[in-house]
């Protein structure tokens, strides 16, 4: 199978450090920030960002987890229902700046679902979006404030983010598209 | 004058338990009677007009069903005498006794005569009506049994329901005694069976359905036996379904009491586990399938084994279908509300031959239970000459292939009742030709 490495462990770490600095810069500090990691890989990314923010600003930023399963728009089209994991936001988000954290930004539908989920939990002052990879092909008018790396891809291509906490390795790879028919 | 209707059945294997016949041979039918039985290839005494080749097939007396429901008059949407007797012919039956739970019930001269007239006009096979024990089958006052017997009733039964009143059963037995006819009872203690829709046991417990305990039948069997002893009257016990019933009848017969008994093909082959609906042999069944609902209910494996043993030991006199056709609507509802009964005439032989193929009973014994056994009961009731291939007997003959495999397709039934849990099942053995009064009424 054709697999191409797009980001290495070092690339990922650098990207997160840069995002952390951008978050501080844009929000003039860490006050009123809540990081919300989207299941599955957004969760460890949010935790890492919180740790980085602590290094930079010496401030504890609360980290929550969010499962968007109940807000998905493709439920009727799926054979199997996605497994729903816990949503756990430790802080009141009313009036806060919520930074959604996800691994890949693609069509934007997951982010749309996440914003709906956040809004049901309270009325934040602002919602921002941090992603490790933006691969384009948006289907909704959604844009990320913080992008680790812009990776132009074809629609058929599959981008896999692999993180130590979930997958046991640190990589972002592109997997060649599955073919509709086998080549002769 | 040349006899033009003579039919020679040639090359088959003759089995006639009435005369201990079990050998290859040919048989000639003429003028509605058995004319001659000969060795294979032996020239018949007259030239047949028609030859029915029966190589590899069994040729035996036409089957007799002591118990079926033809539903006419009153429930013609379920079955008619025409469709029911055609179903009988397809199943290899040449004589059927129809039950009295019609509307109006067969508790009066006109109804019995109606059945006999319809049967003569439209029936494919011989129909012998069983008349009511009580007026309106209400279990309160005796029906006019002597007049009904005179009109052609061969027995009395309130089947569909038991004769619940022990007192009325006693008087029925006494009154029928000089008529020489049996009281056929559906033995069931209604206070024990009330509300029950299947066999009481572990399956009913799992399914949360109300069960009918075996004792509901056995209490009534015991009662009927005691009343036979008290009155000297003849009780014919219908569709026995439990090991305990077989045991009670065994004791009664040992005492020489006037008791006869029948069992159905479904009680000999099927068990209550089928109500769970998960059976590799019956692919179309689902849980709570109302096609499994029958009264008496399908019982346990142990009961089935005891019934088969009862056949072998001569405790059971006959196999009767209890063919109970129903419409789709009668069955397409909740289990508790569904009508009880299985459309059985067209699958009886295939189901019963399963017992033979599994080595549980010999083929001649099975044929005896379908021919000479029930014939003895009807002979005592004044209908002689049935169930035998002896020269001079009515030319009622069944020719069947004991090994032909076929898939049960209720939509292809002659019966209007498609209510069978055997739908889609593969049976081994089927009637190939049925001859009633010398005429081929079915050929497969």
């Amino acid at each position, binding site marked *: 199978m054709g697999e191409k490495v797009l980001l290495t462990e070092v690339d990922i770490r650098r990207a997160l450090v840069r995002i952390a600095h951008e978050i501080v810069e844009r929000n003039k500090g860490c006050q009123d920030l809540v990081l919300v990691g989207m*299941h*599955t*890989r957004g969760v460890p990314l949010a935790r890492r960002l919180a740790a980085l923010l602590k290094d930079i600003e010496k401030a504890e930023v609360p980290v929550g987890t969010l*499962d968007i*399963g*109940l*807000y*998905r728009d*493709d*439920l*009727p*089209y*799926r*054979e*199997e*229902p*996605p*497994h*729903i*994991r*816990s*949503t*756990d936001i430790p802080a009141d988000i009313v009036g806060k700046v919520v930074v959604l954290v996800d*691994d*890949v930004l*693609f*069509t934007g539908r*997951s982010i749309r679902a996440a914003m*709906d*989920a956040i809004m*049901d*939990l309270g009325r934040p002052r602002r919602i921002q979006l941090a992603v490790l990879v933006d691969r384009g092909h948006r289907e909704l008018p959604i844009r990320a404030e913080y992008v680790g790396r812009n990776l132009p891809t074809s*629609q*058929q291509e*599959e*981008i*896999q983010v692999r993180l130590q906490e*979930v997958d046991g390795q640190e990589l972002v790879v592109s997997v060649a598209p*599955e073919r*509709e028919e086998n080549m002769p | 004058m040349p006899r033009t209707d003579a039919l020679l059945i040639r090359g088959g294997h003759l089995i006639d338990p009435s005369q201990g016949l079990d050998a290859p041979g040919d048989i000639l039918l003429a003028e509605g009677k058995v004319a001659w039985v000969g060795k294979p290839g032996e020239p018949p005494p007259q030239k047949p007009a028609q030859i029915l080749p029966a190589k590899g097939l069994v040729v035996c007396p036409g089957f007799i069903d002591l118990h079926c429901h033809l539903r006419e008059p009153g429930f013609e949407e379920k079955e008619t005498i025409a469709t029911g007797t055609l179903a009988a012919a397809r199943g290899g039956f040449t004589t059927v006794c129809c039950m009295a739970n019609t509307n109006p019930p067969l508790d009066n001269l006109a109804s019995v005569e109606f059945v006999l007239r319809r049967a003569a006009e439209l029936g494919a096979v011989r129909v012998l009506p069983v008349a009511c024990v009580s007026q309106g089958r209400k279990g309160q006052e005796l029906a006019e049994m002597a007049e009904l017997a005179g009109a052609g009733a061969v027995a009395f039964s309130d089947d569909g329901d038991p004769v619940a009143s022990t007192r009325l059963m006693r008087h029925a037995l006494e009154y029928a005694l000089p008529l020489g006819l049996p009281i056929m009872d559906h033995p069931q203690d209604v206070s024990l069976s009330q509300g029950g829709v299947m066999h*009481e*046991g*572990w*399956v*009913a*417990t*799992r*399914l*949360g*359905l109300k069960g009918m305990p075996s004792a509901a039948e056995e209490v009534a069997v015991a009662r009927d036996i005691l009343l036979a002893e008290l009155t000297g009257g003849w009780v014919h016990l219908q569709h026995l379904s439990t090991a305990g019933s077989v045991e009670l009848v065994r004791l009664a017969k040992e005492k020489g009491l006037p008791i006869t008994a029948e069992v159905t093909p479904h009680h000999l082959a099927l068990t209550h586990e089928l109500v769970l*609906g998960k059976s590799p042999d019956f692919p179309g069944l689902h*849980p*709570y399938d*109302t096609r499994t609902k029958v009264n008496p209910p399908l019982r346990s494996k142990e009961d089935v084994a005891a019934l088969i043993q009862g056949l072998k030991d001569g405790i059971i006199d006959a196999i009767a279908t209890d063919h109970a056709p129903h419409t789709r609507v009668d069955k*397409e*509802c*909740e*289990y*508790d*509300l569904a009508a009880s009964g299985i459309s059985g005439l067209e699958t009886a032989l295939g189901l019963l031959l399963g017992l033979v193929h599994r080595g549980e009973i010999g083929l001649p014994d099975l044929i005896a239970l379908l021919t000479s056994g029930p014939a003895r009961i009807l002979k005592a009731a004044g209908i002689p000459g049935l169930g035998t291939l002896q020269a001079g007997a009515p030319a009622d003959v069944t020719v069947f292939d004991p090994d032909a495999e076929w898939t049960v397709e209720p939509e292809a039934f002659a019966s209007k009742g498609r209510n069978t849990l055997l739908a889609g099942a593969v049976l081994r053995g089927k009637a190939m030709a049925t001859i009633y009064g010398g005429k081929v009424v079915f050929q497969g």
Partner: protein
Amino acid sequence: MRMREVSRRAAESQAILSTETKEWHHRHVLDLDDFSRGEIEAVLDTARAMKEVLGREIKRVPTLRGKTVVTAFYEPSTRTRVSFELAAKNLSADVASISAQASSVEKGESLLDTVRTFQALGADILVLRHWQSGAPYFVAQHVEASIISAGDGSHAHPTQALLDLFTIRERMGSIEGLRVAIIGDIAYSRVARSNVWGLMAMGAQVVLCGPSTLLPSDIEKAYPDVIVETSSEAALEGADVVMALRLQRERQEAGLLPSLREYIRLYQLNSERLARARPGALVLHPGPMNEGLEISPEVAHGPQSAIEEQVTNGVAVRMALLYLLARGGHAED
């Protein structure tokens, strides 16, 4: 084209796909006799997420928007019906309700006619409560919609059993190895029957206990791994969870019990009897309770009772089932 659609979606949701519940493949929920441990766990895990939604100020998520849930109750049960309706509404489904009193049952309309009407009205999920055992199986044979049994006759009450399992797991941490005593009218109890399947699948030891006349025939053969007791003291000995069943007063009239007084004397779950169970044993009751009959008020409202919590958990479990059944309505194949 379809391939591309699939892989595009797969890429978008790859994280979620990786932990998808492969176990769940039920089109209907009719009983727990065909549920594996994995399937039950899938329900309980989903229910935990649903319970989080119930803890919010706005207890509503858009998950089942556009889906229609019909509740058809052929037997009065305010509690179960409301629980299902809240569950459906919390998931933003459209809910329509039919009760036996208001429907055409009295006009002689058959169950089949009625359910075909639900179908024609576009029900995606039909929640059915019926007084006849097996009625949901019959309905499932004849409609496209998913059926959830909300209790049928004496046969099954799968959602009650699942909420019991949820409550036990939440309070005790795990169900495996627990001794669960169910006391009362076993013969007529759909709650007991479904709990037997669910508890056994989860590895619990089940003890069924009641007077002989309220134990169904051949119970040992029906549930070979279950312990059957006629003495409530013996059943309670060492129990981790105790469930008292509602006693219908009709049982006495039917000749199954000499008197309610004697039943109370022998089977009522009171503090004296409860003391025979393990310290801190959990007390459950499917409701509605006859306080002072099968359970004493001090036990019903005591510290070991989770009876009120069962009601909340019921909504969460029913939300989980509605969610799990609502998939694939427009699958391309």
